[in-house]
């Protein structure tokens, strides 16, 4: 199933756990260090690096782009390290989370309460994923290098629904 991000954020109910989709739209990278800075900004009510309303965050720190390419290898990093920050970020309006691996109960509850959604991408296939990224812009925290925030325009990124908006969890043992 091919789906556009704009359509998805308006109607997350169309997707159920374990469903495989191809996502297109604009997503923002943020991993450990960027999350810490975002939380600091929220704590002092500063200006966020991008509009969080209905936004999609991708836990990713890409390799540098070779000349003539838009991005290097760009698969997901492990999501649970962001768990402590995620409920606060969802409360600010972020609707879509993309990463790999399981999430805490707090995150799952927050996804449920806010009708958000968590997708996983296959880890360790960053060369393959790079083919779905069409445009990259550096948005913020340049000094963090691979951990900076980048705006990615993606077409047909292969994702699996890991936690749907009802809180159904693919990793439930």
């Amino acid at each position, binding site marked *: 199933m091919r789906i556009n991000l704009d359509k998805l954020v308006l109607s997350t109910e169309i997707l159920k756990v374990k469903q495989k989709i191809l996502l297109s739209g604009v997503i923002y990278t943020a991993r450990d260090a960027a999350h810490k800075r975002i939380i600091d900004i929220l704590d002092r009510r500063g200006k966020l690096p991008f509009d969080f309303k209905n936004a999609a965050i991708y836990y990713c720190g890409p*390799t540098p782009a070779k000349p003539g390419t838009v991005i290097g290898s760009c698969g997901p990093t492990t999501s649970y390290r962001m768990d402590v920050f995620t409920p606060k970020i969802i409360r600010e309006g972020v609707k879509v989370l993309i990463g790999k691996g399981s999430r805490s109960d707090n995150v799952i509850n927050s996804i449920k309460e806010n009708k958000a959604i968590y997708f996983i991408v296959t880890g360790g296939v960053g*060369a393959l994923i790079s083919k779905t990224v069409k445009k990259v812009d550096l948005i913020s925290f340049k000094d963090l290098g691979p951990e900076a925030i980048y705006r990615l325009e993606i077409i047909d990124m292969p994702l699996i629904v890991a936690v749907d908006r009802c809180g159904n969890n693919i990793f439930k043992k």
Partner: protein
Amino acid sequence: MRKIRSKNIIEVVKSLCAQANYELPKDVLKSLKMNLIYEKGIAKNILEEIIQNATIAKNEQIPLCQDTGTANFFVNLGKDVYIDDGNIYNAINKGVSLGYADNYLRKSIVFDPIERKNTKYNTPANIYVDIVSGDKIKITFLPKGGGSENASTLKMLIPSIGWAGVKKFVLNVINDGSRNACPPLIVGIGVGGDFASIGLLAKKALLRRIGSKNKNKFYDVKERELLTDINKLNIGPMGIGGKTTALAVFIESKPTHIASLPVAVCVQCHSCRRKTVII
């Protein structure tokens, strides 16, 4: 005494950084392909993506994974060779800093674990040197990602617990943490030694080729048993459920104290990148 220049080592290391990060070893790729028949649906799709990724990475020289890892080097340094204008540590670190910059690899090392400022060169590398006979230098490079490293665990067990206790510990480690470590995994296990040495032995176990037999008959049997048990945990590719949780289990042992039974489990993701060169 054979004389060698630092430049020679630097060039070899630079090239290792690129090759290991762009090309999945043949044994790993073969094992992934062999496991396709055990999976269906999205679990099978994941294995297919991993195999497809290896082709793209090799053909287009793109890193297999964006986490181009901590640079681990295992060196067998012949006692009859010497580096006349430097030393092995400086040469390898120089090779890593150049190799990661020139080949567009990610720099993932921070100076201090609390302050967390990037060193910008992916150095320092972890360099483990064994002095051996001969006049050659054998260098094995293992770039290791942080996700699987975080799932690795070490514990000091007591002797009375025996193999049953070791097995239980290993299965718990895999069941608790490996969904986040990009399975299918390669599991390196070290048994014996002491606190400092057993983690290193577990990591060295990852250097074995998938499909090779353990020279120790007892552990050879245990490796196969553990692999079967791990693959019954229904963790599967990327932890979503399935039969392919691990591709291989490798066990190394060493002598230990009469009071001790140290065990280390070094978890390796499916992107098991390793490459050896002899100078």
